Protein backbone atom coordinates (compact mmCIF):
# COMPACT_ATOMS: atom_id res chain seq x y z
CA UNK A 1 0.00 0.00 0.00
CA UNK A 2 1.19 3.51 -0.79
CA UNK A 3 2.34 5.13 2.45
CA UNK A 4 0.64 8.36 1.53
CA UNK A 5 -2.78 6.76 1.35
CA UNK A 6 -5.15 6.20 4.25
CA UNK A 7 -6.21 2.65 5.05
CA UNK A 8 -9.70 2.08 3.69
CA UNK A 9 -11.03 1.11 7.09
CA UNK A 10 -10.39 4.55 8.54
CA UNK A 11 -12.48 6.42 5.98
CA UNK A 12 -15.97 7.40 7.08
CA UNK A 13 -17.96 6.24 4.14
CA UNK A 14 -20.56 4.14 5.90
CA UNK A 15 -22.05 6.57 8.47
CA UNK A 16 -25.16 8.54 7.47
CA UNK A 17 -24.17 12.07 6.43
CA UNK A 18 -25.52 15.05 8.33
CA UNK A 19 -24.96 18.62 7.18
CA UNK A 20 -23.20 20.65 9.89
CA UNK A 21 -22.23 23.76 7.97
CA UNK A 22 -24.10 24.99 4.91
CA UNK A 23 -22.98 27.86 2.72
CA UNK A 24 -25.89 29.43 0.88
CA UNK A 25 -25.16 31.62 -2.17
CA UNK A 26 -22.08 32.95 -0.44
CA UNK A 27 -20.51 36.02 -2.04
CA UNK A 28 -17.51 37.93 -0.79
CA UNK A 29 -16.15 41.06 -2.38
CA UNK A 30 -13.24 43.22 -1.33
CA UNK A 31 -12.70 46.87 -2.27
CA UNK A 32 -15.06 49.50 -3.66
CA UNK A 33 -16.08 50.79 -7.07
CA UNK A 34 -13.65 50.00 -9.84
CA UNK A 35 -11.36 48.26 -7.37
CA UNK A 36 -14.08 45.85 -6.30
CA UNK A 37 -12.84 42.29 -6.43
CA UNK A 38 -15.21 39.35 -6.08
CA UNK A 39 -13.41 36.55 -4.27
CA UNK A 40 -16.29 34.12 -3.74
CA UNK A 41 -19.02 33.63 -6.37
CA UNK A 42 -22.36 32.49 -4.94
CA UNK A 43 -20.99 29.37 -3.32
CA UNK A 44 -23.42 26.67 -2.27
CA UNK A 45 -21.52 24.03 -0.32
CA UNK A 46 -22.42 21.70 2.51
CA UNK A 47 -19.92 20.40 5.02
CA UNK A 48 -20.84 17.20 6.79
CA UNK A 49 -20.19 16.22 10.34
CA UNK A 50 -18.16 13.11 11.12
CA UNK A 51 -16.10 13.82 8.01
CA UNK A 52 -12.78 15.43 7.27
CA UNK A 53 -13.31 17.75 4.32
CA UNK A 54 -10.31 18.98 2.40
CA UNK A 55 -10.60 22.37 0.76
CA UNK A 56 -8.03 22.50 -2.01
CA UNK A 57 -7.08 24.79 -4.83
CA UNK A 58 -4.36 27.14 -5.98
CA UNK A 59 -3.27 30.20 -3.97
CA UNK A 60 -5.76 33.06 -4.21
CA UNK A 61 -8.72 30.84 -5.15
CA UNK A 62 -10.67 31.91 -2.03
CA UNK A 63 -10.09 28.97 0.34
CA UNK A 64 -8.93 31.10 3.28
CA UNK A 65 -11.67 33.67 2.69
CA UNK A 66 -14.25 30.88 2.72
CA UNK A 67 -13.06 29.37 6.01
CA UNK A 68 -12.75 32.86 7.53
CA UNK A 69 -16.43 33.44 6.74
CA UNK A 70 -17.46 29.99 7.94
CA UNK A 71 -15.59 30.54 11.21
CA UNK A 72 -17.22 33.95 11.68
CA UNK A 73 -14.01 35.95 11.29
CA UNK A 74 -15.21 37.72 8.13
CA UNK A 75 -18.67 38.73 7.03
CA UNK A 76 -19.98 37.74 3.59
CA UNK A 77 -21.03 40.45 1.15
CA UNK A 78 -24.19 38.46 0.54
CA UNK A 79 -25.49 34.99 1.24
CA UNK A 80 -25.29 33.23 4.56
CA UNK A 81 -23.67 30.39 6.43
CA UNK A 82 -25.80 28.08 8.48
CA UNK A 83 -23.83 26.70 11.41
CA UNK A 84 -25.45 23.64 12.95
CA UNK A 85 -28.87 25.01 12.22
CA UNK A 86 -28.15 28.61 13.23
CA UNK A 87 -27.88 31.20 10.44
CA UNK A 88 -24.71 33.16 11.00
CA UNK A 89 -26.47 36.37 9.94
CA UNK A 90 -28.48 36.12 13.16
CA UNK A 91 -25.30 36.11 15.24
CA UNK A 92 -23.95 39.64 15.57
CA UNK A 93 -21.23 41.21 17.75
CA UNK A 94 -20.87 39.53 21.11
CA UNK A 95 -23.18 36.64 20.20
CA UNK A 96 -20.99 35.70 17.26
CA UNK A 97 -17.81 35.97 19.37
CA UNK A 98 -19.36 33.75 22.05
CA UNK A 99 -20.56 31.30 19.42
CA UNK A 100 -17.06 31.16 17.97
CA UNK A 101 -15.51 30.66 21.40
CA UNK A 102 -17.80 27.73 22.16
CA UNK A 103 -18.15 26.08 18.77
CA UNK A 104 -15.07 26.72 16.65
CA UNK A 105 -11.55 25.39 17.00
CA UNK A 106 -8.66 26.73 14.93
CA UNK A 107 -5.43 25.22 13.70
CA UNK A 108 -3.25 27.79 11.98
CA UNK A 109 -0.45 27.40 9.48
CA UNK A 110 1.98 29.24 11.76
CA UNK A 111 0.60 27.58 14.92
CA UNK A 112 0.03 30.97 16.64
CA UNK A 113 0.91 29.61 20.05
CA UNK A 114 1.47 32.22 22.74
CA UNK A 115 5.26 32.09 23.29
CA UNK A 116 4.94 33.18 26.91
CA UNK A 117 2.85 30.13 27.79
CA UNK A 118 3.83 26.49 28.17
CA UNK A 119 2.20 23.82 26.02
CA UNK A 120 -0.39 23.06 28.73
CA UNK A 121 -1.13 26.73 29.30
CA UNK A 122 -1.56 27.30 25.57
CA UNK A 123 -3.97 24.41 25.34
CA UNK A 124 -6.12 25.70 28.20
CA UNK A 125 -6.63 29.17 26.64
CA UNK A 126 -9.97 28.32 24.87
CA UNK A 127 -11.32 27.02 28.18
CA UNK A 128 -10.21 30.19 29.99
CA UNK A 129 -11.96 32.25 27.31
CA UNK A 130 -15.14 30.40 28.20
CA UNK A 131 -14.64 31.17 31.88
CA UNK A 132 -13.55 27.70 33.03
CA UNK A 133 -11.51 28.03 36.27
CA UNK A 134 -7.78 27.86 35.60
CA UNK A 135 -7.17 24.76 37.75
CA UNK A 136 -9.83 22.78 35.87
CA UNK A 137 -8.68 24.14 32.52
CA UNK A 138 -5.10 23.03 33.20
CA UNK A 139 -6.24 19.51 34.12
CA UNK A 140 -8.29 19.22 30.93
CA UNK A 141 -5.43 20.69 28.88
CA UNK A 142 -3.04 18.05 30.22
CA UNK A 143 -5.50 15.30 29.27
CA UNK A 144 -5.74 16.76 25.77
CA UNK A 145 -1.97 16.96 25.45
CA UNK A 146 -1.82 13.33 26.45
CA UNK A 147 -4.25 12.50 23.60
CA UNK A 148 -1.97 14.18 21.06
CA UNK A 149 1.06 12.37 22.51
CA UNK A 150 2.75 15.33 24.14
CA UNK A 151 2.19 14.60 27.82
CA UNK A 152 5.94 14.59 28.40
CA UNK A 153 6.34 18.07 26.88
CA UNK A 154 3.50 19.65 28.84
CA UNK A 155 5.78 22.18 30.52
CA UNK A 156 7.71 23.13 27.39
CA UNK A 157 7.47 26.56 25.79
CA UNK A 158 6.80 26.78 22.05
CA UNK A 159 10.41 27.77 21.36
CA UNK A 160 11.47 24.45 22.89
CA UNK A 161 9.22 22.40 20.59
CA UNK A 162 9.73 21.29 16.99
CA UNK A 163 7.34 22.49 14.29
CA UNK A 164 5.42 19.21 14.36
CA UNK A 165 5.15 19.29 18.14
CA UNK A 166 3.94 22.90 18.06
CA UNK A 167 1.25 21.96 15.57
CA UNK A 168 0.18 19.07 17.81
CA UNK A 169 -0.13 21.52 20.70
CA UNK A 170 -2.20 23.74 18.39
CA UNK A 171 -4.46 20.77 17.56
CA UNK A 172 -4.89 20.04 21.27
CA UNK A 173 -5.75 23.71 21.82
CA UNK A 174 -8.25 23.65 18.98
CA UNK A 175 -10.05 20.61 20.39
CA UNK A 176 -9.80 21.05 24.15
CA UNK A 177 -13.17 22.80 24.38
CA UNK A 178 -14.79 20.18 22.14
CA UNK A 179 -15.87 22.48 19.33
CA UNK A 180 -18.44 21.44 16.73
CA UNK A 181 -16.39 22.98 13.93
CA UNK A 182 -12.66 22.56 13.48
CA UNK A 183 -11.02 24.80 10.90
CA UNK A 184 -7.46 24.01 9.91
CA UNK A 185 -5.61 26.42 7.64
CA UNK A 186 -2.68 24.78 5.85
CA UNK A 187 -1.74 22.78 8.97
CA UNK A 188 1.12 20.99 7.22
CA UNK A 189 2.50 23.83 5.11
CA UNK A 190 5.30 24.67 7.53
CA UNK A 191 6.18 21.05 8.22
CA UNK A 192 8.34 18.43 6.55
CA UNK A 193 6.70 15.37 4.99
CA UNK A 194 6.83 13.08 8.02
CA UNK A 195 5.64 15.74 10.47
CA UNK A 196 2.88 16.72 8.05
CA UNK A 197 1.62 13.17 7.82
CA UNK A 198 1.76 12.77 11.61
CA UNK A 199 -0.24 15.97 12.07
CA UNK A 200 -2.87 14.95 9.50
CA UNK A 201 -3.14 11.50 11.04
CA UNK A 202 -3.66 13.13 14.42
CA UNK A 203 -6.30 15.51 13.09
CA UNK A 204 -8.14 12.54 11.66
CA UNK A 205 -7.89 10.45 14.77
CA UNK A 206 -8.75 12.95 17.44
CA UNK A 207 -11.07 15.35 15.67
CA UNK A 208 -13.32 13.42 13.31
CA UNK A 209 -16.37 12.37 15.28
CA UNK A 210 -20.15 12.55 15.02
CA UNK A 211 -21.47 16.07 15.45
CA UNK A 212 -18.21 17.74 14.41
CA UNK A 213 -17.35 19.26 11.05
CA UNK A 214 -13.65 19.26 10.21
CA UNK A 215 -12.42 21.48 7.36
CA UNK A 216 -8.80 21.40 6.33
CA UNK A 217 -7.54 23.96 3.84
CA UNK A 218 -4.49 22.69 2.06
CA UNK A 219 -2.61 22.62 -1.17
CA UNK A 220 -0.24 20.02 0.16
CA UNK A 221 -1.04 17.08 -2.15
CA UNK A 222 0.78 14.68 0.19
CA UNK A 223 -2.10 14.85 2.65
CA UNK A 224 -5.06 14.55 0.24
CA UNK A 225 -5.44 10.92 1.22
CA UNK A 226 -6.44 11.84 4.76
CA UNK A 227 -9.70 13.45 3.69
CA UNK A 228 -13.12 11.86 3.43
CA UNK A 229 -14.15 14.42 0.91
CA UNK A 230 -12.32 16.95 -1.19
CA UNK A 231 -13.74 20.23 -2.43
CA UNK A 232 -11.69 21.82 -5.16
CA UNK A 233 -11.87 25.55 -5.71
CA UNK A 234 -10.67 27.84 -8.44
CA UNK A 235 -11.25 31.59 -8.82
CA UNK A 236 -13.79 31.67 -6.04
CA UNK A 237 -15.89 28.84 -7.40
CA UNK A 238 -16.18 25.17 -6.54
CA UNK A 239 -14.87 23.23 -9.50
CA UNK A 240 -15.13 19.70 -8.19
CA UNK A 241 -16.32 17.76 -5.19
CA UNK A 242 -15.10 14.24 -4.76
CA UNK A 243 -15.58 11.70 -1.99
CA UNK A 244 -12.74 9.76 -0.43
CA UNK A 245 -9.90 10.78 -2.73
CA UNK A 246 -7.84 7.96 -1.32
CA UNK A 247 -10.35 5.36 -2.32
CA UNK A 248 -10.62 6.44 -5.93
CA UNK A 249 -7.15 7.66 -6.82
CA UNK A 250 -3.56 6.77 -6.24
CA UNK A 251 -1.36 9.41 -4.75
CA UNK A 252 0.33 10.17 -8.06
CA UNK A 253 -3.06 10.56 -9.69
CA UNK A 254 -4.19 13.01 -7.05
CA UNK A 255 -1.02 15.04 -7.50
CA UNK A 256 -1.14 15.02 -11.27
CA UNK A 257 -4.82 15.95 -11.26
CA UNK A 258 -4.18 18.78 -8.88
CA UNK A 259 -1.21 20.02 -10.85
CA UNK A 260 -3.13 19.98 -14.09
CA UNK A 261 -5.91 22.04 -12.47
CA UNK A 262 -3.37 24.51 -11.11
CA UNK A 263 -1.78 25.05 -14.52
CA UNK A 264 -5.17 25.62 -16.13
Amino acid at each position, binding site marked *: MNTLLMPESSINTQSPLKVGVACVKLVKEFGDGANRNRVLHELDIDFYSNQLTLLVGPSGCGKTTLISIIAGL*LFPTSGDVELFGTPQSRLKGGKLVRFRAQNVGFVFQQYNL*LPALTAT*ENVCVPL*LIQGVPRSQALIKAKEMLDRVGLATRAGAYSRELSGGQQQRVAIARALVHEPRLLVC*DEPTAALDGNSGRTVMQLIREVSVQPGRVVIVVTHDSRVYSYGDRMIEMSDGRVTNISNSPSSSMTDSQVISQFKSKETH
Partner: protein
Amino acid sequence: MNWVAWKMLNGDPVKYLGTVFGVGFGVLLIAQQCSIFVGIILRTANPIADVREAQIWVMDPYLQNADEIKPLSDSDLYRIRGVEGVDWAVKIYKGLARAKIETGNFRQVILMGVDDQSLIGAPVKMIEGDIRDLKRPDAIVMDQYGYKYLWPNEPFQVGREVEMNDRRAVIVGICDVSAPFQSFPVVFTRYSQAVQFVASERQQLSFVVAAPRQGYQVDEVCRLINEQTRSIGEKSGLIAMPYREFVWINIKYYLENTGIPVNFGITITLGFIVGTAIAGQTFYLFTIENLKQFGALKAMGVTNWGIVGMICLQASVVGVIGLSIGLGLTALFFVATTRLLPDLRGLHLMWEIAGGTCLAVTLIICLASALSLRKVLTLEPAVVFR
Protein backbone atom coordinates in the same frame (compact mmCIF):
# COMPACT_ATOMS: atom_id res chain seq x y z
CA MET B 1 -7.85 36.12 30.81
CA ASN B 2 -5.98 38.34 33.26
CA TRP B 3 -3.67 35.43 33.94
CA VAL B 4 -2.88 35.10 30.22
CA ALA B 5 -2.27 38.87 30.02
CA TRP B 6 0.10 38.65 32.99
CA LYS B 7 1.96 35.70 31.44
CA MET B 8 2.19 37.47 28.07
CA LEU B 9 3.70 40.47 29.86
CA ASN B 10 6.42 38.69 31.80
CA GLY B 11 6.84 35.60 29.63
CA ASP B 12 9.85 37.13 27.92
CA PRO B 13 11.96 38.49 30.81
CA VAL B 14 14.18 40.59 28.54
CA LYS B 15 11.24 42.31 26.87
CA TYR B 16 9.43 42.66 30.19
CA LEU B 17 12.42 44.23 31.95
CA GLY B 18 13.05 46.44 28.93
CA THR B 19 9.48 47.72 29.10
CA VAL B 20 9.34 48.40 32.84
CA PHE B 21 12.82 49.90 32.92
CA GLY B 22 11.92 52.01 29.87
CA VAL B 23 8.99 53.44 31.79
CA GLY B 24 11.16 53.66 34.92
CA PHE B 25 13.82 55.65 33.09
CA GLY B 26 11.16 57.98 31.71
CA VAL B 27 9.83 58.52 35.25
CA LEU B 28 13.38 59.13 36.53
CA LEU B 29 13.97 61.81 33.90
CA ILE B 30 10.72 63.62 34.63
CA ALA B 31 10.83 63.39 38.44
CA GLN B 32 14.52 64.18 38.81
CA GLN B 33 14.57 67.24 36.55
CA CYS B 34 11.37 68.65 38.06
CA SER B 35 12.68 68.09 41.61
CA ILE B 36 15.96 69.87 40.90
CA PHE B 37 14.13 72.82 39.35
CA VAL B 38 11.61 73.17 42.17
CA GLY B 39 14.31 72.61 44.80
CA ILE B 40 16.54 75.35 43.39
CA ILE B 41 13.66 77.80 43.08
CA LEU B 42 12.50 77.08 46.63
CA ARG B 43 16.02 77.81 47.86
CA THR B 44 15.50 81.47 47.00
CA ALA B 45 12.89 81.67 49.75
CA ASN B 46 14.46 79.37 52.33
CA PRO B 47 15.89 82.16 54.58
CA ILE B 48 12.34 83.52 54.89
CA ALA B 49 10.70 80.16 55.38
CA ASP B 50 13.24 79.30 58.10
CA VAL B 51 12.01 82.17 60.32
CA ARG B 52 9.15 80.01 61.44
CA GLU B 53 7.74 82.32 64.13
CA ALA B 54 7.15 85.16 61.69
CA GLN B 55 3.71 85.09 60.16
CA ILE B 56 3.91 88.67 58.90
CA TRP B 57 6.79 90.30 57.09
CA VAL B 58 6.96 94.07 56.79
CA MET B 59 9.26 95.74 54.25
CA ASP B 60 9.71 98.59 51.83
CA PRO B 61 6.96 98.47 49.22
CA TYR B 62 9.47 98.61 46.35
CA LEU B 63 11.37 95.54 47.53
CA GLN B 64 11.51 92.88 44.80
CA ASN B 65 13.20 90.03 46.61
CA ALA B 66 14.77 89.18 49.94
CA ASP B 67 18.30 89.73 48.65
CA GLU B 68 17.67 93.22 47.28
CA ILE B 69 16.73 95.15 50.38
CA LYS B 70 15.99 98.82 50.97
CA PRO B 71 16.49 99.31 54.72
CA LEU B 72 13.72 100.66 56.90
CA SER B 73 13.96 103.27 59.58
CA ASP B 74 14.27 102.07 63.20
CA SER B 75 11.14 104.07 64.02
CA ASP B 76 9.15 101.87 61.62
CA LEU B 77 9.36 99.11 64.19
CA TYR B 78 7.47 101.25 66.69
CA ARG B 79 4.89 102.28 64.09
CA ILE B 80 4.19 98.59 63.45
CA ARG B 81 4.06 97.74 67.13
CA GLY B 82 1.46 100.47 67.49
CA VAL B 83 -0.89 98.91 64.94
CA GLU B 84 -4.00 97.33 66.36
CA GLY B 85 -3.90 93.57 66.08
CA VAL B 86 -0.11 93.24 66.23
CA ASP B 87 0.92 90.96 69.06
CA TRP B 88 4.63 91.48 68.72
CA ALA B 89 7.04 92.90 66.13
CA VAL B 90 10.82 92.56 66.05
CA LYS B 91 13.70 93.60 63.82
CA ILE B 92 15.39 91.24 61.38
CA TYR B 93 18.62 92.00 59.57
CA LYS B 94 19.48 90.16 56.36
CA GLY B 95 22.51 90.99 54.32
CA LEU B 96 25.89 89.88 53.08
CA ALA B 97 29.13 90.16 55.01
CA ARG B 98 32.66 88.84 54.63
CA ALA B 99 34.00 86.37 57.17
CA LYS B 100 37.78 85.98 57.38
CA ILE B 101 39.38 83.05 59.20
CA GLU B 102 42.77 82.76 60.94
CA THR B 103 44.58 81.64 57.76
CA GLY B 104 43.42 84.69 55.85
CA ASN B 105 40.94 82.68 53.82
CA PHE B 106 37.56 84.35 53.59
CA ARG B 107 34.04 83.69 52.33
CA GLN B 108 31.08 85.89 51.66
CA VAL B 109 28.41 84.94 54.21
CA ILE B 110 24.68 85.48 54.52
CA LEU B 111 24.30 87.39 57.77
CA MET B 112 21.03 87.07 59.65
CA GLY B 113 20.47 89.44 62.57
CA VAL B 114 17.80 88.10 64.93
CA ASP B 115 15.92 89.86 67.70
CA ASP B 116 18.25 90.58 70.62
CA GLN B 117 15.80 89.70 73.37
CA SER B 118 13.58 86.92 72.02
CA LEU B 119 16.05 85.51 69.46
CA ILE B 120 13.11 85.31 67.02
CA GLY B 121 14.61 84.39 63.65
CA ALA B 122 17.33 82.17 65.17
CA PRO B 123 17.83 78.64 63.77
CA VAL B 124 15.70 75.93 65.27
CA LYS B 125 18.02 72.95 64.83
CA MET B 126 21.37 73.13 66.60
CA ILE B 127 24.10 70.58 65.89
CA GLU B 128 26.69 71.94 68.32
CA GLY B 129 26.26 74.46 71.16
CA ASP B 130 23.20 76.19 72.63
CA ILE B 131 21.24 78.88 70.81
CA ARG B 132 20.97 80.86 74.06
CA ASP B 133 24.73 81.49 73.85
CA LEU B 134 23.92 83.83 70.99
CA LYS B 135 23.29 86.45 73.69
CA ARG B 136 26.97 86.41 74.63
CA PRO B 137 29.19 89.22 73.30
CA ASP B 138 30.42 88.79 69.68
CA ALA B 139 28.54 85.49 69.46
CA ILE B 140 27.59 83.97 66.13
CA VAL B 141 26.05 80.65 65.09
CA MET B 142 27.16 79.24 61.75
CA ASP B 143 25.45 76.63 59.62
CA GLN B 144 27.22 73.29 59.33
CA TYR B 145 27.91 73.50 55.61
CA GLY B 146 29.20 77.06 55.95
CA TYR B 147 31.60 75.80 58.60
CA LYS B 148 32.78 73.09 56.17
CA TYR B 149 33.29 75.70 53.44
CA LEU B 150 35.56 77.71 55.75
CA TRP B 151 37.31 74.79 57.41
CA PRO B 152 37.11 71.84 55.06
CA ASN B 153 37.69 68.41 56.56
CA GLU B 154 37.90 69.77 60.10
CA PRO B 155 35.61 68.71 62.94
CA PHE B 156 33.07 71.17 64.35
CA GLN B 157 34.68 73.27 67.06
CA VAL B 158 32.73 75.77 69.12
CA GLY B 159 34.80 78.78 70.21
CA ARG B 160 36.53 79.33 66.89
CA GLU B 161 36.82 82.92 65.80
CA VAL B 162 36.27 84.72 62.52
CA GLU B 163 36.71 88.35 61.60
CA MET B 164 33.86 90.35 60.09
CA ASN B 165 34.20 94.06 59.29
CA ASP B 166 37.35 94.11 61.46
CA ARG B 167 35.39 92.77 64.38
CA ARG B 168 35.91 89.53 66.21
CA ALA B 169 33.08 87.01 66.05
CA VAL B 170 33.04 83.85 68.14
CA ILE B 171 31.27 80.74 66.94
CA VAL B 172 29.08 79.59 69.83
CA GLY B 173 27.11 77.01 67.90
CA ILE B 174 26.74 75.08 64.68
CA CYS B 175 23.25 74.85 63.25
CA ASP B 176 21.38 73.23 60.41
CA VAL B 177 19.40 75.48 58.09
CA SER B 178 17.65 75.04 54.76
CA ALA B 179 20.07 75.50 51.86
CA PRO B 180 20.11 79.09 50.59
CA PHE B 181 20.09 79.98 46.89
CA GLN B 182 23.74 81.06 46.94
CA SER B 183 26.05 78.45 48.39
CA PHE B 184 27.34 80.86 51.06
CA PRO B 185 27.71 80.08 54.76
CA VAL B 186 24.78 81.33 56.81
CA VAL B 187 25.73 83.20 59.99
CA PHE B 188 23.23 84.10 62.72
CA THR B 189 23.84 86.76 65.31
CA ARG B 190 21.83 89.26 67.34
CA TYR B 191 20.49 92.25 65.39
CA SER B 192 22.60 94.72 67.40
CA GLN B 193 25.69 92.63 66.62
CA ALA B 194 24.81 92.11 62.94
CA VAL B 195 24.77 95.83 62.13
CA GLN B 196 28.33 96.02 63.42
CA PHE B 197 29.52 93.17 61.22
CA VAL B 198 28.62 95.09 58.05
CA ALA B 199 29.64 98.46 56.65
CA SER B 200 27.66 101.18 58.36
CA GLU B 201 24.66 102.76 56.62
CA ARG B 202 22.25 105.35 57.96
CA GLN B 203 19.42 102.81 57.99
CA GLN B 204 20.05 99.10 58.45
CA LEU B 205 16.78 97.51 59.41
CA SER B 206 16.02 94.95 56.69
CA PHE B 207 12.66 93.64 57.82
CA VAL B 208 10.27 93.75 60.69
CA VAL B 209 8.61 90.45 61.41
CA ALA B 210 5.45 90.36 63.44
CA ALA B 211 2.67 88.13 64.65
CA PRO B 212 -1.06 88.84 64.98
CA ARG B 213 -2.68 89.22 68.34
CA GLN B 214 -5.12 86.48 69.34
CA GLY B 215 -8.44 86.98 67.58
CA TYR B 216 -6.89 88.72 64.56
CA GLN B 217 -6.26 87.11 61.20
CA VAL B 218 -2.88 87.49 59.49
CA ASP B 219 -4.42 89.15 56.41
CA GLU B 220 -6.39 91.56 58.54
CA VAL B 221 -3.29 92.63 60.51
CA CYS B 222 -1.35 93.05 57.25
CA ARG B 223 -4.11 95.34 55.98
CA LEU B 224 -4.05 97.35 59.20
CA ILE B 225 -0.26 97.74 59.04
CA ASN B 226 -0.46 98.84 55.40
CA GLU B 227 -3.17 101.38 56.21
CA GLN B 228 -1.47 102.84 59.24
CA THR B 229 2.07 103.03 57.85
CA ARG B 230 1.20 104.43 54.42
CA SER B 231 2.50 107.93 53.71
CA ILE B 232 -0.13 110.35 52.45
CA GLY B 233 -0.22 110.85 48.66
CA GLU B 234 2.50 108.46 47.59
CA LYS B 235 3.61 104.84 47.91
CA SER B 236 6.43 105.33 50.31
CA GLY B 237 5.22 103.75 53.49
CA LEU B 238 5.59 100.10 54.43
CA ILE B 239 4.04 96.97 53.10
CA ALA B 240 3.15 93.96 55.20
CA MET B 241 2.35 90.54 53.86
CA PRO B 242 1.92 86.98 55.11
CA TYR B 243 5.13 85.01 54.93
CA ARG B 244 3.80 82.72 52.18
CA GLU B 245 3.15 85.72 49.95
CA PHE B 246 6.67 86.95 50.58
CA VAL B 247 8.03 83.50 49.70
CA TRP B 248 6.16 83.63 46.39
CA ILE B 249 7.40 87.16 45.65
CA ASN B 250 10.96 85.80 45.89
CA ILE B 251 10.20 82.78 43.78
CA LYS B 252 8.47 84.89 41.12
CA TYR B 253 11.38 87.30 41.05
CA TYR B 254 13.84 84.54 40.26
CA LEU B 255 11.49 82.98 37.76
CA GLU B 256 10.94 86.27 35.95
CA ASN B 257 14.41 87.80 36.18
CA THR B 258 16.88 84.95 35.85
CA GLY B 259 17.65 82.33 33.20
CA ILE B 260 16.75 79.51 35.58
CA PRO B 261 13.25 78.85 34.26
CA VAL B 262 14.38 79.00 30.63
CA ASN B 263 17.34 76.70 31.16
CA PHE B 264 15.49 74.33 33.41
CA GLY B 265 12.36 74.68 31.34
CA ILE B 266 14.27 73.39 28.33
CA THR B 267 15.81 70.59 30.39
CA ILE B 268 12.50 69.62 31.96
CA THR B 269 10.71 69.77 28.62
CA LEU B 270 13.39 67.60 27.04
CA GLY B 271 13.28 65.26 30.04
CA PHE B 272 9.52 65.11 29.75
CA ILE B 273 9.56 64.51 25.98
CA VAL B 274 12.31 61.90 26.19
CA GLY B 275 10.64 60.33 29.25
CA THR B 276 7.28 60.32 27.50
CA ALA B 277 8.77 58.91 24.32
CA ILE B 278 10.58 56.14 26.18
CA ALA B 279 7.70 55.25 28.49
CA GLY B 280 5.01 55.50 25.82
CA GLN B 281 6.93 53.94 22.98
CA THR B 282 8.18 50.94 24.92
CA PHE B 283 4.68 50.01 26.00
CA TYR B 284 3.22 50.78 22.57
CA LEU B 285 5.82 48.60 20.87
CA PHE B 286 5.27 45.84 23.40
CA THR B 287 1.58 45.68 22.47
CA ILE B 288 2.20 46.02 18.74
CA GLU B 289 4.73 43.18 18.85
CA ASN B 290 1.98 41.02 20.33
CA LEU B 291 -0.55 42.03 17.66
CA LYS B 292 -0.64 38.60 16.04
CA GLN B 293 -1.16 36.96 19.42
CA PHE B 294 -4.05 39.28 20.18
CA GLY B 295 -5.41 38.46 16.71
CA ALA B 296 -5.27 34.74 17.55
CA LEU B 297 -7.03 35.36 20.86
CA LYS B 298 -9.72 37.38 19.08
CA ALA B 299 -10.19 34.55 16.59
CA MET B 300 -10.53 32.08 19.46
CA GLY B 301 -13.31 34.16 20.95
CA VAL B 302 -11.84 36.84 23.22
CA THR B 303 -14.14 39.86 23.01
CA ASN B 304 -12.88 43.37 22.38
CA TRP B 305 -13.65 44.20 26.02
CA GLY B 306 -11.58 41.19 27.02
CA ILE B 307 -8.66 42.54 24.96
CA VAL B 308 -9.16 46.01 26.51
CA GLY B 309 -9.02 44.41 29.95
CA MET B 310 -5.84 42.49 29.10
CA ILE B 311 -4.04 45.57 27.76
CA CYS B 312 -5.24 47.71 30.69
CA LEU B 313 -3.90 45.12 33.11
CA GLN B 314 -0.56 45.02 31.29
CA ALA B 315 -0.47 48.83 31.23
CA SER B 316 -1.25 49.01 34.96
CA VAL B 317 1.47 46.52 35.85
CA VAL B 318 4.04 48.24 33.62
CA GLY B 319 2.95 51.66 34.94
CA VAL B 320 3.05 50.74 38.63
CA ILE B 321 6.35 48.86 38.44
CA GLY B 322 7.91 51.48 36.12
CA LEU B 323 6.77 54.28 38.42
CA SER B 324 8.11 52.48 41.48
CA ILE B 325 11.46 51.92 39.80
CA GLY B 326 11.65 55.50 38.49
CA LEU B 327 10.58 57.18 41.73
CA GLY B 328 12.81 54.85 43.75
CA LEU B 329 15.82 55.69 41.57
CA THR B 330 15.01 59.41 41.84
CA ALA B 331 14.83 59.24 45.63
CA LEU B 332 18.04 57.22 45.69
CA PHE B 333 19.72 59.81 43.44
CA PHE B 334 18.90 62.62 45.86
CA VAL B 335 19.88 60.61 48.94
CA ALA B 336 23.24 59.78 47.33
CA THR B 337 23.96 63.22 45.90
CA THR B 338 23.01 65.19 49.00
CA ARG B 339 25.32 62.99 51.04
CA LEU B 340 28.20 63.21 48.60
CA LEU B 341 27.69 66.78 47.36
CA PRO B 342 26.70 69.23 50.11
CA ASP B 343 25.94 71.91 47.50
CA LEU B 344 22.96 69.81 46.40
CA ARG B 345 21.49 69.56 49.90
CA GLY B 346 17.83 70.35 50.21
CA LEU B 347 17.08 68.94 46.78
CA HIS B 348 14.79 66.00 47.19
CA LEU B 349 11.85 64.23 45.61
CA MET B 350 8.78 66.11 46.78
CA TRP B 351 5.48 64.28 47.11
CA GLU B 352 3.85 66.83 44.83
CA ILE B 353 6.37 66.01 42.09
CA ALA B 354 5.99 62.29 42.72
CA GLY B 355 2.21 62.72 42.40
CA GLY B 356 2.55 64.85 39.27
CA THR B 357 4.90 62.31 37.72
CA CYS B 358 2.42 59.52 38.54
CA LEU B 359 -0.29 61.52 36.80
CA ALA B 360 1.91 62.28 33.79
CA VAL B 361 3.04 58.67 33.39
CA THR B 362 -0.53 57.42 33.84
CA LEU B 363 -1.57 59.74 31.00
CA ILE B 364 1.37 58.60 28.86
CA ILE B 365 0.61 54.92 29.46
CA CYS B 366 -3.10 55.52 28.84
CA LEU B 367 -2.27 57.28 25.58
CA ALA B 368 0.11 54.49 24.52
CA SER B 369 -2.52 51.92 25.50
CA ALA B 370 -5.22 53.79 23.59
CA LEU B 371 -3.04 53.99 20.48
CA SER B 372 -2.12 50.31 20.63
CA LEU B 373 -5.68 49.35 21.55
CA ARG B 374 -6.91 51.13 18.44
CA LYS B 375 -4.66 48.86 16.40
CA VAL B 376 -5.72 45.74 18.28
CA LEU B 377 -9.44 46.50 18.28
CA THR B 378 -9.52 47.31 14.58
CA LEU B 379 -7.48 44.21 13.85
CA GLU B 380 -9.53 41.69 11.90
CA PRO B 381 -9.26 38.30 13.56
CA ALA B 382 -8.95 36.81 10.07
CA VAL B 383 -5.40 38.19 10.08
CA VAL B 384 -4.40 34.95 11.79
CA PHE B 385 -4.90 33.14 8.50
CA ARG B 386 -2.49 35.41 6.63
